[in-house]
């Protein structure tokens, strides 16, 4: 028994290492003013270049692991946000960027939006700022990635792996 659990532990270790070292992003704007969106994109440009951490901005939610969501989730964008979130395959993470995504920011209380991403989908990391500097976004991503490594070391199966999962 020990060998198999030892072996599966090593397998788990390798999987976490891979997940931590190639976090593919999909970015979704749920009604933001574009301030955070241009900072999220600035993070890929030569001066900050997140590709050195393995980050790639993918267009399809199906390919991505981390959903970077900006904006206070307007009523019209709500159903589309749920769609994008559902399309992503496990394990998936959500990073809310900007004070609008956290709490509605300056638009807090206006009608027609949900006052933040976590009112609609579960959020793993919050990055305050209006807009957060590109370095602050990198800091958020790095913190999420390092917490990923720590979380698996502690509890091997973070969520109930879906039965159809590859490693079942």
């Amino acid at each position, binding site marked *: 028994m020990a060998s198999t659990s030892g072996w599966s532990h090593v397998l788990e270790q390798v999987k976490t290492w891979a997940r931590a070292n190639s976090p593919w992003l999909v970015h*979704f704007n749920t009604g933001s003013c*574009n301030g955070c969106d*241009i900072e999220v994109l*600035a993070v890929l*440009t030569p*001066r900050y270049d997140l590709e050195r951490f393995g980050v790639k901005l993918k267009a399809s939610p199906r390919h991505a692991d981390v959903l970077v969501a900006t904006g*206070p989730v307007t009523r019209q964008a709500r159903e589309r946000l749920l769609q994008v979130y559902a399309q992503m395959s496990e394990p998936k993470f959500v990073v809310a960027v900007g004070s609008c995504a956290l709490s509605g*920011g*300056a*638009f807090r209380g206006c009608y027609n939006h949900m006052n933040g991403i976590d009112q609609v989908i579960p959020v793993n990391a919050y990055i305050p700022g209006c807009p957060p500097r590109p370095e602050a976004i990198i800091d958020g991503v790095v913190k999420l990635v390092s917490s990923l490594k720590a979380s698996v070391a502690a509890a091997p199966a973070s969520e109930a792996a879906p039965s159809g999962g590859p490693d079942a």
Partner: protein
Amino acid sequence: MEPRSETERFTVPIGPQHPALKEPGHFRISVEGEIVTQAAVRLGYAHRGIEKGAEGRNWIRNQYLVERICGICSHIHATAYCLGVERLAKVEVPPRAQVIRVLVAELERIHSHLLWIGVAGHEAGFDTLFMYSWRDREAIMDVLEALTGNRVNYSANVLGGVKCDVDDALRDTILRTVDGLEKRTEHYLRVVTTDALFLQRTRGIGVMTRAQAEVLGAVGPTARASGVERDVRVEAPYAAYPSFPVRIVTDTRGDLEARVVVRVRELFECYRLVREILDHMPPGELHGRMPRRIPEGETISRVEAPRGELFYFLKSNGSDTPERVRVRTPTVCNMTSVVRLVVGHQLADVPMILAGIDPCFSCNDRVIDVERKGRAAEQWTWEQLRAYGVDTYHGHRP
């Protein structure tokens, strides 16, 4: 793959790679044979209820609410709002504050146009242009961060004046940055006017004649690219523009390439203005005394945002919260004018025309409905439109 046989609902992901988009549009286009006969736009994905929210907040808080309507032209929104409120309250703004407002507005125009050159490159699949233009743009972002404390939402304005000042050290860094950027902008001007593959996506696409631009009410660089001399900084100079005259940059061809060239040439105009401003900085304090209750009255404040004329209508009822704040952003005008322009064009050219006016859309998606005579409206994706365009070019139209 026959889109025409059955009606299918497609959604178009202009997708996360379109950062300059502020408000996703939903286009309804009806077609006869190949020519677009009717087109309409439906916004709404980024409607946050700002005008109603403004009625529930006091004048001071509204400035920051209004500043976050569009992240790329945040300063110009705050400036328009502050000018209007100061005119209502009949408060005299010190000249140095007005000049700093104009300085930050021009720096913001530089950052907005450089951003759009990158986005146009990215939309045309020219990622190197996107990477290099955004790398050079970082220099102006640093200047703005050093000057105001934030890269995008500067909050440099305060009711009655400005919060930040330009000291000598900052002045030298700004001048150095502007010199460096001027050389790079000359290089970009050469790139966008000579690179064969980029020109294939812009030259002769989406031509808008001068008459069309005027009738359809286009504003900003989109209108100036068709020869319409409409620039609020020249027609109705506000803040410190009377003492810093602006030379209008126009083009006559009115196609997509002209819109790119007008924006790049405007960058040179911005550099000249910034240098002129920094040479003639009037002394004085930064902001005057501002009452918390604004006397009753109405006023209109028009300014020139990077994408065109921005219109503010403010009405106060004497209390410390406004009665009505009306904001008309330039993109709504450009979008409705371009959607009108699309009528009569080839269906195959519609995608690049719409993407070419630097539309301010939040980057969710655009759904294009194609209504054919005598058949239920089909909704096509943007890409389906492009694929349809490909069939047109191939000539094997069914």
